């Protein structure tokens, strides 16, 4: 097996980590499994396509604007729809996110049609050589951006007062409220942040691959596998889990052929849940 395979796995894993990070953040802080996360990713890709395909922007230039745009859409969804639901039955917000997922897919279809789209860029298909390894440029860019976004997320959560407010609201929302923290707002900001991360993942995915309105679901499942692998509560763990999953997938495709691509992801998901439900990169609770 060549090192190329390993490198490709690591780089692809970066994207998985980016998608998993948003799911993990929302689940960790709000206790909400966001089944519409895949649509936030693909929504980012479609939003970027307005700038890239229609107006000729470079995808990387469109990226910050896309992140902001998706975050702005996500904020009121959490603040005025999902948070009120979180107060009641636990399953209501879960079902609501599934509904949002279906609704978003229908909107994508209505707005953009079902034809596969992609975000054209000079670095979309080109390859470069690093240390003698042949690497697709976009995956290198995606990996670099993922490292950056993970680092920023980690620093915001651990080094800023806003970050400790998020962790406080996550650990004990009632006490956070007693301390004057506006918990619904913290929830909405967290959800918007996760949506921005999803949008970034969407732009990068859109450059690397083509996408359709229904591309979100496999991305959601991959992200969930990353979260299961990582466990809740650490940005670094999510990053490592994404990379591990990427390598696992890349190696298994090399060994068993392309048909086994998703089987390996779900098998890993299942095995981790069965054997180490707290995740690979987290000590058992307590």
């Amino acid at each position, binding site marked *: 097996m060549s090192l190329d395979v390993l490198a490709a796995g690591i780089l692809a894993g970066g994207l998985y980590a980016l998608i998993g990070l948003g799911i993990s953040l929302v689940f960790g802080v709000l206790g909400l499994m966001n089944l519409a996360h895949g649509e936030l990713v693909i929504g980012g890709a479609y939003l970027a396509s307005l700038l890239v395909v229609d107006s000729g922007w470079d995808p990387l230039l469109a990226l910050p604007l896309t992140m902001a745009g998706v975050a702005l859409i996500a904020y009121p969804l959490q603040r005025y729809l999902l948070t009120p639901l979180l107060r009641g039955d636990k399953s209501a917000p879960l079902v609501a996110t599934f509904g949002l997922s279906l609704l978003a897919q229908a909107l994508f279809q209505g707005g953009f049609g079902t034809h596969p789209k992609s975000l054209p860029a000079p670095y979309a298909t080109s390859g470069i050589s690093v240390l003698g390894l042949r690497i697709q440029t976009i995956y290198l860019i995606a990996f670099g951006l993922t490292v950056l976004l993970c680092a920023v997320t980690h620093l915001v959560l651990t080094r800023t007062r806003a970050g*400790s407010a998020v962790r406080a609201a996550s650990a004990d929302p009632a006490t956070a409220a007693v*301390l004057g923290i506006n918990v619904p707002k913290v929830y909405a900001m967290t959800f918007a942040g996760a949506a921005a991360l999803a949008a970034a993942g969407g732009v990068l995915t859109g450059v690397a691959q083509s996408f359709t309105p229904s591309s979100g679901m496999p991305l959601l499942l991959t992200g969930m596998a990353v979260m299961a692998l990582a466990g809740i509560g650490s940005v670094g763990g999510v990053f490592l889990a994404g990379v591990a999953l990427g390598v696992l997938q890349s190696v298994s495709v090399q060994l068993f052929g392309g048909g086994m691509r998703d089987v390996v992801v779900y098998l890993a998901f299942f095995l981790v849940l069965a054997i180490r439900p707290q995740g690979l990169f987290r000590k058992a609770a*307590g």
Partner: protein
Amino acid sequence: MKKLDAETTPEARPNPDTLSGAPLQVRGLSKRFGGVTALDGVDLSVASGEAVAVIGPNGAGKSTLLKLISGVHRPTEGEVWLGEQRLDRMPAHRITRSGIALAHQVPRPFHGLTVRENVRVGAMASRPHPHPGEIDEILARCRLDTKASRPADSLRVLDLKRLEVARALATRPRVLMFDEVAAGLVGRELDEAIDLIRQVHDQGITVLLVEHIERVVRELVDRVLVLNWGRPLAEGTPAEIATNEEVRAVYLGDGDRAQAPPARTAATGPAPDTAAVLALESVSAGYGDMVALRDFSMRVEAGQIVTVLGANGAGKSTLCATIMGAVQARSGSVHALGQDITGMATHRRARLGIAHCQEGRRIFTGLSVAENLMLGAPLALAKDEVRGRMERVHAIFPVLAERATQQAGTMSGGQQQMLAVGRALMADPQVLICDEISLGLAPVAIDALYGALAEINSQGVAIVLVEQNVKRALGIADHAVVLSRGRVSYTGDPAGLLSDEALDAAYFGTTDDTTPEAGSYSLLAAPVSRPLSASEGDPS
């Protein structure tokens, strides 16, 4: 201390008793949760058909004991036997089949099932096809027969408690344990709950009660075990326990009231017409059907220390939750700092200047000490100002400066409590509510905290001091309020509570549900109505 099972022979393997005659025996039972010891070497032997109560203050380990016996938790050490069967290693469902049933304090019916279906599920625990007549009989006995086909969700609180008992009865228990089933009941409801338990016992079922309401204990059992901090403190008849000084001390706190000044002078003299910083007017609040606070009024003037006292379950924590908005007042109004805050969101009340130091500390154990403190300050506050406030808190609690970078959960209980108070102070509040801040602390740590409270108060902060530690609280307060079963039973000068008689009257005395029999106000001291005797032969 005399072991409760002194009359039995714990060394010998239990004799192969007849099934109904099997005693429940608990030997050296201990339970630790992480580093916290909830139960520490408890022995208890309950003869078949006997009725025994376990009492003790919050955190004494009473519920833990019941949960260990019923298999909800595994003991860390010790054994539980029912007759010749060892229970502590069985899974919970097999313990139930052996004849142990637990009726919970907060009823947990299966929602969506009818009353009858709920009871049938209980019966299926021991046999797949319970006889329908048997279920009807249980329903009738628990006075649920007319409501059998109603959904369990529609029941009111007393009926829910009946259902809880009916479900437990359906498992055909030999031992039925009641975890504060009378909590939240008043007047006739309480009478009926007592009747129900008595009826269960009259069938020959062994009864183990965890209870705070002394009347329930007095009327139903012949033996009482008192737990404190997980250890047996005393045991005896209800009358003996009532006169036990140690038990009184545990319930009323350990501060030396005799030496404490009866009252301090308020930081600002009580000018009658100044607006109160906190005023509750005829507030009622509760959970579901349970009313925990009834028609409660209270005024706190600027710079005052008001203490709110009362036994467990009197409504003190509900009061705090209502002031902060975690529980909505059903009627009445709450005003603070010149605003009506009755319907205001919790975080806005906090920003207005009310800080709440919650029971159980509720610090963020995974965050550092400094992070915890900073969370107490508004996010928008400038960094310099946050630092300034932190220095003021550090001046009061120097240990918090020493441990700034330490993970908060790794500190000692007393230090965690200081952090909780310090965090509340970071909001620069005008009103500080302290809920049970001395609970579980060593006297030295309590001294330090109370010293800090006096200092905080001298800076003009009004303090609402919710306490079980009566003597400490009365020593520092300007005004005292005693809650009993959700109502005010005393309000006025703390000095008025200095005598034991006055305190007993306020704590345990006449409420709407007790007939003022023999004018007896002292703890459990009323004449014991005929005890349900266990020794009168095998009731089966």
